[in-house]
C-alpha cells in the first residue's frame, strides 16, 4: 500500500449538526478542497441515539461537497434490509458511485449482521442496470430475464423479490464492516470489501488470514505496517476537521477514477444470484 492511506473522516460531536445547517466554518474548508479526494466523510459514526439520519445527511452533503465520497453507518436497528438497501443504493446513484456503507452490529449477534449484509448486497445486485433496454419499437423497457428474486429465507429475515432500483455506476456501494470480535471478522470474509479494526489482536488475526481471501483493512487508531487501504479518523470539532483536511495529501489518481470503489483500488464486486429464481420468469416480447 501507499504510505498515505485514504482517510475516512468520521464526523462526530457537533460536526454533523453544523454540516446539516450548512455552517460555512465547517463547509468552506471541505468545499475548498477540490481536484482530488484522498479522503471521504463518514456519517453516523457517533454515539447513540443519533441526532441526524446518516443517509439523509450524506445526500445533502454530497450536493454541497460534490468531490467528497460519503460513507453511511448502518446498525440496522428498526431498519428492514429492503428499506436500507434501497436507501443506500439511492445514495450511490445520486453521488455517481461515490458512496459506501459501514455496517455495525451494536449488540446484534455476528450471524444477524452477516445475514443483514448478505441480504442488502443481494438486493443491490438483483437488478442489473444493463437489463434496461428501453426499446421504443417493441415497447420493452427492461429485459426481465436478468432480474433475480433474492428469495431469502434466513434465520432473521425473509425477503423475496428484487430491489426497485437498478445497480449503480460502481456496481454496488463499497461495503465495510466495523468488526468488534473474532467471530465478526471471520464472518466478514467474502462478505464485505473492507473491515474496520481498532483492536491489535483482531489485526493480528486479519494479518494471519490468507491475503487473497480476506477483506481489505481500514485501521482505526492502531499501527498497521502500511497494510491498510484506509484509516478511520474520528473528528469532533471544526478545528480538528480543518487540521485533518489540511493534512490530506494530494492524489492524482482521483480525477481519472469516478467511483469510490476505484479510488480505493477495490476490485469490481457482485453477488452471485445465478441460483436464485427469475423475478418475473421468462419475458414474452
Amino acid at each position, binding site marked *: 500500500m501507499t504510505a498515505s492511506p485514504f482517510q475516512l473522516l468520521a464526523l462526530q460531536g457537533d460536526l454533523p449538526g453544523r454540516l*446539516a*445547517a450548512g455552517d460555512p466554518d465547517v463547509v468552506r474548508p471541505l468545499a475548498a478542497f477540490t481536484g482530488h479526494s484522498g479522503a471521504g466523510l463518514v456519517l453516523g459514526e457517533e454515539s447513540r*441515539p*443519533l*441526532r*441526524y*439520519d446518516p*443517509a*439523509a*445527511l450524506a*445526500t*445533502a452533503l*454530497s*450536493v*454541497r461537497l460534490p468531490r467528497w465520497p460519503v460513507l453511511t453507518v448502518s446498525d440496522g*436497528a*428498526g*431498519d*428492514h434490509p*429492503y*428499506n436500507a438497501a*434501497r*436507501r443506500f443504493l*439511492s*445514495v450511490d*446513484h*445520486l453521488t455517481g458511485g461515490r458512496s459506501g456503507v459501514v455496517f455495525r452490529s451494536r449488540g446484534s449477534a455476528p450471524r444477524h449482521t452477516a445475514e443483514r449484509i448478505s441480504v442488502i448486497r443481494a438486493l443491490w445486485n*438483483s*437488478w442489473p442496470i444493463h437489463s*434496461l433496454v*428501453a426499446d*421504443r419499437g417493441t*415497447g*420493452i*423497457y*427492461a*429485459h*426481465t430475464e436478468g*432480474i433475480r428474486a433474492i428469495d431469502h429465507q434466513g434465520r432473521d*429475515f*425473509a*425477503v*423475496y*423479490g*428484487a*430491489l*426497485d*432500483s*437498478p445497480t449503480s455506476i460502481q456496481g454496488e456501494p463499497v461495503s465495510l464492516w466495523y468488526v468488534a470480535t473474532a467471530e465478526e471478522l471471520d464472518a466478514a470474509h467474502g462478505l464485505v470489501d473492507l473491515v474496520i479494526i481498532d483492536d491489535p489482536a483482531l489485526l493480528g488475526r486479519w494479518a494471519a488470514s490468507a491475503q487473497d481471501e480476506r477483506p481489505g483493512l481500514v485501521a482505526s487508531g492502531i499501527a498497521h505496517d502500511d497494510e491498510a487501504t484506509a484509516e478511520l479518523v474520528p473528528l469532533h470539532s471544526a478545528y480538528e476537521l480543518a487540521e485533518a483536511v489540511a493534512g490530506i495529501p494530494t492524489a492524482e489518481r482521483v480525477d481519472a477514477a469516478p467511483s469510490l470503489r476505484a479510488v480505493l483500488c477495490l476490485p469490481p464486486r457482485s453477488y452471485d444470484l445465478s441460483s436464485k429464481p427469475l*423475478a*418475473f420468469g421468462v*419475458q414474452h416480447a
Partner: protein
Amino acid sequence: MNTFHLNLSLMTPGHFRGAWRLPGRDPLAWVDVGRYRELARIAEGAKIHAIFLGDSPGLGTAIAEHPESGLEPTILFADVLAGTKHLGAIATSSSTYNSPYNLARRYLALDHVTGGRAAFNIVTTFAPQAAAAFGYGTAPEKADRYRRADEFAGVVLSLWDGWDDGAIVGDPASGRFADPARIGRLEHVGEFFRVSGALSVPPSPQRRPVLVQAGGSPGGLELAANWADVVFTAGQDLDEAVAFRADTKRRAAQAGRDPGQILTSLGVIVLVGDSDHDVRRRIDELVDSTDVHAAATGVAIQLGLGTDGLDPDSLITIESLDAAPHPPASAGFFRSTRALIAAGPRTVRELITRSAGGAGHRLLAGTPEQIADDLEHWFRAGAADGFTIMPADTAVDFERFTAQVVPLLQERGLFQQDYAGTTLRENLGLAPLVPGADRQRAGNQRAAAHQRAAAHPTAEEEEG
C-alpha cells in the same frame, strides 16, 4: 383563501407510463438526478409550493414495459432541494413497512437540511411485491394497515413534538446544553409499536414536516381527520370533489381540530397543448404508447372487477360497479370513478383515457387558457384548497404547465407571485404549530383507543 396551492409531481416519464417510448424522451430520466434537479429549479422558478413523489417499495412485473418507483424519495429530495431555497418537497413512505422512530428521525433530518421544507405523505402500501420484499405472503389486511398507520402517525407526531421551545439552553459558562425537563419522553405502548424515549434532534424551522395523507377508505379518512395537514385526493366529478372536501373538514372538526387547518389537494393529470388539434394529437399519441390491455387489467383491479382483464371496449355501468365481486384496490379511486359513472356508463377505454392510463385521477387536457379556466372553476366551486399537478408526459407537460399555465393563474390572482415565507408550512398558509399540541392530540387519541378497547375488547373495526 383567494389563492390555491400547487404541488407538482416529478413522476417520470409521466402519468402516462409509456411516454418514454415517444421520440426524443430519455428513457433513463427516471434515475437521472440531474434531470430531477433541473425540474426542481423550474418548479421553484414558477413559485410552485412543493414537488411530490408517490412511492411503493418493491419491483413489479410492469418493469418490462415501463418504470415505476425508483430512487428512495427522502434521499432524492435531500439532494434536489439542496439546489433550491423556497420549494417544498412531499416524499412518500409506507407506514406498513417502516418503523416510526427511524422514519420520524429521517424526515426530521430532511426537514433540517432543507430549512423546514419537507412533508411526509403517509401511505399504507397494498402492492403484493412490497409485501413479498418485507417477508409477508400477502399484504396485511386494509383494516390492519390503517390501524397501524393511525398509530404510526401518532407516534411520529409525538416524537417530532418532543422538544419544547427553549429546550436548548446553550450556556457556555455553566456547560448546560439542554434542559431535560423541557424534552418530553414518549412512553407509547400500542397495538403495533412500543416506543420509549425522545428524538435526539430539536424541532426544525417549521417545527416538524407537514403531514400529508392520501387514502380514501374509511380508515384513511379517519387517519386524515386525526392527523393530516394536507389530504391528497382524486376527483373525477366536481360535485363529488366538493362534497369530499366539505366532509374532510367536517371530520377534522369532529376530531377536535380547526377545519381550516386541513387542506385538500386534488390530484389532476395535466396535458398542455397549443390548440385543440394539438391536444387531441397528443392524447392519441400517449394512449398509443400505453398497453391498453394491461391498463384495462389495472382498471379492473382498481375497481374490484376481477383480475382477468376487461375488454377495453366493454361498458362499465353503475350496476356492474355496485355488484363488483371484489373490494376495490383503492377506495379513493373507486369513489372518484363511481361518481363519474353515476352520470352515465363509460367504456373501459374511456376510463383509461380520462385518467391517463389509470383509474383514478382526472386527465385535464387543453390549451393553457382552458386548463387555467378549469382549475379556477373547480377551485371557486370549493372542490379543493389546491392541486397536485401530475404531468401526463413529464418531458413536455412539466415545463409547459409552469411556463404557460402558471402565469395565467398568477394574472388572475389565483396563484402566488412569490413565496410567502421560508418554510413549506408558511407557504401553504398553515398556522404555526404550538409546542405540545401534537403530543396532546396523540395522547387524547391513545386514551380514546384504550377506552374503546376496554369497552369492546373483541370488536373489529369495519373497513371499506
